[in-house]
């Protein structure tokens, strides 16, 4: 799970950009924006547990 998160973020990025282009050209501007927002939320949901885990270990490690 460690390394694959980078490639998953890249995949979401590419997917969102392709979807956005398709939706934009077919005239649905808002859906394009909504898909990029959904991609953003998905990526954040993946990254947040890692960030909190990192900061927890650092806090325990350095007795901060």
């Amino acid at each position, binding site marked *: 799970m460690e390394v694959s998160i980078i*490639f998953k973020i890249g995949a979401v*990025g*590419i997917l969102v950009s392709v979807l956005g282009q398709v939706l934009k050209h077919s005239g649905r501007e808002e859906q394009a924006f909504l898909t990029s927002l959904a991609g953003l939320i998905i*990526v954040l949901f993946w990254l947040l547990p890692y960030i909190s885990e*990192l900061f927890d*270990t*650092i*806090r325990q490690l350095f*007795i*901060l």
Partner: protein
Amino acid sequence: MEIIRIAILGIAGFLLAVMVRDVRPEYAVYISLGTVLCIMLLSVERLKYLLEMLRDLESYLPIDTAYLHSLLKMIGITYVGQFSAGLCKDAGYSAIAGQIEIFSRLSVLVLSMPILLALMETIRSFLS
């Protein structure tokens, strides 16, 4: 060896980020954040081992543990500050990074004050 794995991880991360940058600029920042997190999680494992060794060494050193604890705190503050400042600089917001760095320096200074006072006390006790 381990370092080769980390190097490949970093290179793969920034290649992916460069590829996605012109299409979706914000995802380049997320990919770099993900890569930095992965590498940091791996380096925190090594740090844990080092700090266990430091605790074993503590028994040999005559210094009391308060100084070592504040030393550890300083290292932690610089570690986290450097991590977040680097990320802000990467994303292009060096003003925020500058503020984070100044804050981390100040907090390290605040932590070092008691040690400095203790040093002054010992010097004065020698002189008087």
